[in-house]
C-alpha cells in the first residue's frame, strides 16, 4: 500500500519584486513543476536536490503547511491541505536546524508537552519514551535544560520528540547537519532500526549523501521543480553517466595507454595511469586487456563519487549550496 502519493503536483508562487521606485514586477515561480511519485509503507527514501530546487516546498505540501496549486496529494489516505490537523497526529516532522524543544526547560518537559498535545495514552507514551531514551542514549540528558545540550544531543532529542506519538511517516529535513561523526552515526543507526522494527516510512532530505548511502535504497533527485531521478541509489550512476576508474601501476613510465578498448586515459603520473570507464560496465575485460599489453605491477578500481554524480545530474558544476 502506498503511504504517500503525489500525482502531477505543482506549486506556483507569485513573486513581487521592486522594479524602480514604484513599479513592481510580478513573476511566477514554479517551485514544484509537476511531480509524481509514490512511497509504499515502510520505505525509506532520500529526497535530494540543490537549494531552491523545490525540496522543502514538496515537504511543506506533504505536511499540509502549503496548499498545492495543482495536482493530487495523499498521505496515509489524507489530503494534507484539507485535513491538516488530522494528518498532524499521523506524521512526525524534524526540521534539522530549528529545534522544537523548549530552550530553558529540561528535555523531559518538552516530551510531556508533546504527550498532552498529541493525546498519547500513558502506556504507549512511556513505552515510546523508554525506547527512544535507550536507543538515542538520552537517559543522562532528560533533566538537562535544552540550552545546555550540544547540537548532536539536541538533534537526538528532536528526533525522539517527533516519534513519541508513533507517526506512520517521518519527515526529516537535514537531520545530520552540523553534527559530529559520532552523533551522525547514532542518528543514522537509530533511523535504520526504527524503519526496520517499526516499519516507519521515512522521507529524508539532506545535503550529506552519506546519509542516503547508509539509509536509503531509493533516492529521488529534484531540480528546478522536477524529478530528474527516482530509483535505486546505484542506478544514479547509470543516469548520471558516471565513470569508474581503473588505477594501474606499471613497471616503468610509459606513454598513455590509448589502445585499451572501452576506456580512456585521464591522468598520468610517472608509472601510474588512470583509466576511466562507464560505471555500468564490468572491469574484468578491461583488466584483461591491460594485463595482456602492459607490464603490470598492481591495479585497483575506484568507485565513482556519488557527490560528483549528483552534481552532474543537477547540471554542470558542484551542488549549489
Amino acid at each position, binding site marked *: 500500500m502506498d503511504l504517500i502519493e503525489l500525482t502531477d503536483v505543482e506549486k506556483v508562487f507569485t513573486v513581487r519584486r521592486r522594479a524602480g521606485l514604484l513599479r513592481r514586477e510580478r513573476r511566477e515561480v514554479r517551485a514544484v513543476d509537476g511531480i509524481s511519485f509514490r512511497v509504499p509503507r515502510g520505505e525509506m527514501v532520500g529526497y535530494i536536490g540543490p537549494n531552491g530546487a523545490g525540496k522543502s516546498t514538496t515537504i511543506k505540501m506533504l505536511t*499540509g503547511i502549503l496548499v498545492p496549486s495543482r495536482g493530487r496529494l495523499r498521505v496515509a489516505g489524507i489530503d494534507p491541505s484539507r485535513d*491538516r490537523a488530522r494528518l498532524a497526529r499521523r506524521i512526525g516532522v524534524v*526540521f534539522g536546524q*530549528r529545534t522544537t524543544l523548549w530552550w530553558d526547560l529540561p528535555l523531559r518537559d518538552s516530551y510531556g508537552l508533546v504527550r498532552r498535545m498529541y493525546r498519547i495514552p500513558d502506556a504507549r507514551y512511556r513505552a515510546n519514551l523508554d525506547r527512544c531514551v535507550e536507543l538515542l542514549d538520552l537517559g543522562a540528558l532528560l533533566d538537562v535544560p535544552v540550552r545546555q545540550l550540544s547540537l548532536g544531543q539536541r538533534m537526538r532529542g528532536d528526533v525522539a520528540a517527533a516519534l513519541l506519538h508513533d507517526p506512520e511517516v517521518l519527515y526529516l529535513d537535514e537531520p545530520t547537519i552540523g553534527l559530529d561523526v559520532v552523533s551522525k552515526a547514532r542518528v543514522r543507526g537509530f533511523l535504520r532500526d526504527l524503519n526496520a522494527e517499526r516499519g516507519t516510512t521515512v522521507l529524508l532530505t539532506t545535503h550529506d549523501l552519506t546519509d542516503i548511502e547508509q539509509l536509503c535504497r531509493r533516492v529521488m533527485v529534484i531540480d528546478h521543480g522536477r524529478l530528474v531521478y527516482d530509483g535505486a541509489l546505484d542506478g544514479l550512476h547509470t543516469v548520471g553517466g558516471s565513470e569508474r576508474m581503473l588505477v594501474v601501476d606499471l613497471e616503468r613510465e610509459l606513454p598513455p595507454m590509448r589502445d585499451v578498448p572501452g576506456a580512456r586515459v585521464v591522468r598520468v603520473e610517472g608509472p601510474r595511469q588512470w583509466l576511466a570507464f562507464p560505471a555500468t560496465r564490468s572491469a574484468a575485460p578491461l583488466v584483461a586487456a591491460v594485463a595482456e599489453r602492459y607490464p603490470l605491477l598492481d591495479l585497483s578500481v575506484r568507485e565513482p563519487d556519488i557527490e560528483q554524480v549528483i552534481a552532474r545530474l543537477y547540471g554542470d558544476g558542484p551542488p549549489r549550496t
Partner: protein
Amino acid sequence: MGERGHALRAYGLIAAMWIRSTMAYRLSFVLTALGNFAVSALDFVAILLMFSHIDALGGFTLPEVALLYGTTCTSFGLADLLLGNADRVGRRVRDGTFDQFLVRPVPVLVQVAADRFALRRIGRIGQGALVLAWGVARVDVEWTPGRVLFAVVMVVTGAAIFAAVFLAGAAFQFWAADASEVANSFTFGGCTLLQYPPTVFAKELVRGATFVVPLAFVNWLPALWLLGRDDPLHLPGWAAFCGPAVALLLLGLSGLAWRAGIRSYRSTGS
C-alpha cells in the same frame, strides 16, 4: 474531551511551559513584572501630575478619570496577557519557525496566542485593577448589584474588544510582516486614548473610535452610563449596553481575517 476543550487545555499547557521557562530567570521575571506594573503606573502618575494643577480634565474629576483609566488598563492587560504575543507571528513567519505550528494537532491560533506567554503582564493588570478599585470607591455612583455586574461585564467586554484588535493586527502581519507597529497604534494607542474622557477629544476622533474601530465600547460608553453623563456624540441610551454584541462581532471579523491570513500563508509560504 471535545476539540474545544483540547484547544483550551493546550493553551494552558503551552502557557505553563513559558511560565516555567521564565522562572529559569527568576530575578528577571520579578524585575520585568514590577517594570510592567511601573510602566503602566507611570501613565497614571502623569495623570496625577496633571491633576496636581487642575481639578477637572474635560469636565471629569480625578476619580472619574481613574475609573476610565482602570477599566481600559485592566481590559487591555487581560487581552495583552492572553493574546498579546500574537504580534510575534510576523517574526515567526520571517524566521521560518511558524511552520512548526502548522504540523501540530492543536489549532494554530492557540499556539500563536500562547507563544511566549508573558506572565509578567499581570503587572499591568494589577496596576489597572488597583486604580479601578480606587476609582470605583471614589466616584459618585451608587453601586447596586446591577451596576457592579455591569462594571464586571464592561471589563470583560473590553478585554474581548482589545483581543479582537490584537488578533486583527496579528492577521494583518501575514501580508505585511514588518507592520506590527500599526497594530500597536490601535492597541497601545487605543488604551491611552481611552484613559482620558471622550470630551477631551475632537468629535471626529471620538466618532472614529466609535464607528470605525469601536474602542468606545471598551469603557467610554458604558462608563459614561455608569457616571450618568451624556456622551459627546449623543448616541441613544442603549448604546452603552451594546459592548458584548460589538465584541462578538469584532471577534468574528478578526477570526475571519485570521483565517484569511493563514490561507494566504499556506498558498504563498510567506
